[in-house]
């Protein structure tokens, strides 16, 4: 039972077959047992979790509460939580305790979830393997010698190992979908502006998007219901009527048009990944969908565009870490400028510094037009490709990543190789449209393969429906790594 989905756990909680305290205690025991291996959590708070669980049980005893009441959850450590430290997996914020909750944290709390802790990640969400964490790398439950993906690797690994049924993540260039794929779970990047960024420690503000991780698409819909909504504290949060993201889950796929961009099926795709995607597409055809070949001629430029825009925005956002108001301050320094330089040199890891330097360079005098403006223009070309594609199809599918999980250390020496892992995921951040990764098979080494389903802006309901129908017809989402069996 402890490894069940949110929807199943919610039923058991309401039928009193299980209490939230029992569920939470059981999961805390599993976290205690396995976290030393996986390093998925940077902070665990059993006392607070059990207090939350007792409160949830009281609500359930009255016959109140919703589908998330009493469900244990973890938050990526880039989302701030009042009363529980929020480190961003950085020495810079090792002891930082936010005075407030992030909007999505508050939404999930109001929905009755039980917070067990904060998950490990790439430092400041900059990475694709969760190896740049100040607290050491996260390991993949399917093979602890491999990375779980990143940057939200702790959240993904925790769910894959069934340490929690749900977790939050953030996705700036693939940081929800790529770890979901490499860890064999579901991860949704909602449309930009649907979930408030308030309390998300900013990396690249025009791309950062909070979203849910879970075992199933249905669970992601339940979580998104509690995370979405207008928030005046985020100037880019959109005012839209509230919607129920589960509303279309029961609908048919008859007549659904799936676009297959030729650029997602070319060279560089591992043959096992290609085979798993082909089998998934065959399943969708059986479910009544048809596939259409489409073209996204500029999508290959996503990576260079991203590595101008994201570092540029990061260099500006991370200038707030100066050792004055919060965060690390060097022990020894001379004048004020020296205090800044030393505090930032000590507080940030190598990848974060690299991106700040790239961003500083592209925004520096004389280079703005050649880099930042150029990247914004190419961003428009990529977005226009998607506008044309979505005139012909309802969703776009392809592999989430070119390969399954890679070994720890395999790409840490070569940033550009690491960056290329996000070649299929970055475009959805540039366009702002929703995209989901679901498990759809395994490679020759028994590592999971992810299928990416991209939708039109604000069409999460369709993306989730498509994934849900697939999960009703298949059982990839129910596979779990044997080593961490409950």
């Amino acid at each position: 039972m402890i490894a069940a989905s949110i929807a199943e756990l919610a039923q058991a909680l309401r039928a009193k077959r299980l209490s939230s305290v029992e569920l939470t205690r059981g999961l805390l025991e599993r976290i205690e047992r396995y976290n030393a291996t996986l390093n998925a959590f940077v902070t665990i708070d059993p006392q607070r979790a059990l207090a939350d669980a007792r409160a949830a049980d009281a609500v359930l005893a009255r016959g109140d509460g919703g589908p998330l009441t009493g469900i244990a959850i973890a938050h990526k450590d880039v989302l701030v939580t009042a009363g529980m430290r929020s480190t961003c997996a950085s020495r810079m914020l090792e002891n930082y305790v936010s005075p407030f909750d992030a909007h999505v944290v508050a939404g999930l709390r109001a929905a009755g979830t039980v917070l067990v802790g904060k998950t490990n990640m790439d430092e400041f969400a900059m990475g694709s393997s969760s190896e740049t964490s100040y607290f050491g790398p996260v390991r993949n439950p399917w093979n602890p010698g491999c990375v779980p993906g990143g940057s939200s690797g702790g959240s993904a690994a925790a769910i894959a190992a069934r340490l929690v049924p749900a977790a939050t993540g953030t996705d700036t260039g693939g940081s929800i979908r790529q770890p979901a794929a490499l860890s064999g779970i579901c991860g949704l990047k909602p449309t930009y502006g649907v979930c408030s960024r308030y309390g998300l420690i900013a990396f690249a503000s025009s791309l950062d998007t909070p979203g849910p991780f879970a075992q199933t698409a249905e669970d992601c819909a339940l979580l998104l219901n509690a995370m979405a909504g207008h928030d005046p504290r985020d100037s880019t949060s959109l005012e839209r009527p509230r919607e129920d993201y589960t509303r279309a889950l029961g609908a048919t796929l008859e007549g659904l048009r799936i676009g297959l961009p030729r650029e997602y099926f070319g060279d560089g795709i591992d043959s096992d990944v290609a085979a798993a995607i082909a089998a998934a597409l065959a399943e969708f055809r059986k479910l009544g969908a048809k596939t259409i070949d489409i073209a996204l001629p500029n999508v290959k430029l996503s990576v260079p565009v991203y590595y101008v825009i994201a570092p540029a925005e990061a260099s500006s956002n991370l200038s707030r870490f100066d050792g004055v108001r919060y965060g690390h301050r060097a022990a020894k320094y001379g004048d004020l400028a020296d205090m800044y330089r030393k505090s930032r040199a000590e507080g940030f890891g190598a990848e974060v510094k690299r991106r700040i330097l790239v961003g500083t360079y592209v925004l520096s005098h004389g280079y703005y037009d050649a880099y930042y403006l150029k990247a914004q223009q190419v961003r428009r070309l990529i977005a226009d490709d998607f506008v044309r594609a979505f005139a012909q199809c309802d969703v776009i599918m392809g592999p989430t990543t070119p390969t399954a999980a890679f070994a720890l250390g395999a790409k840490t020496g070569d940033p550009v190789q690491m960056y290329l892992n996000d070649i299929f995921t970055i475009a959805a951040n540039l366009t702002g449209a929703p995209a989901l990764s679901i498990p759809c098979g395994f490679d020759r080494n028994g590592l999971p393969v992810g299928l990416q389903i991209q939708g039109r802006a604000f069409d999460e309901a369709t993306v989730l429906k498509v994934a849900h129908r697939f999960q009703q017809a298949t059982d990839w989402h129910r596979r779990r790594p044997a080593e961490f069996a409950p």
Partner: protein
Amino acid sequence: MTISVADVHRIAHLARIEIDASEADEVRAKLDAIFAMINELAAIDTVGVVPMAHAQDVSLPLREDRVTEADRRALYQADAPAVEDGLYLVPKVIE
């Protein structure tokens, strides 16, 4: 175009990050590889293309110009490395 060690020191200064001479070479080499990838963009024809700054074409909302936040200075300063009498302490700036 390649990144020089002088470039590294210039941008490290702008970014207020101390980089000593022993690190500068490795930083330079990694940045050079990143810019080789980024420089693919230079060949793309973008004449007349309107830059896309943002995913949604919406204008920023305005609000009434009045104070909405309570005074929570003590709480906020609890996270600061050094404070005294409600002020953030930094090395002496003015002699």
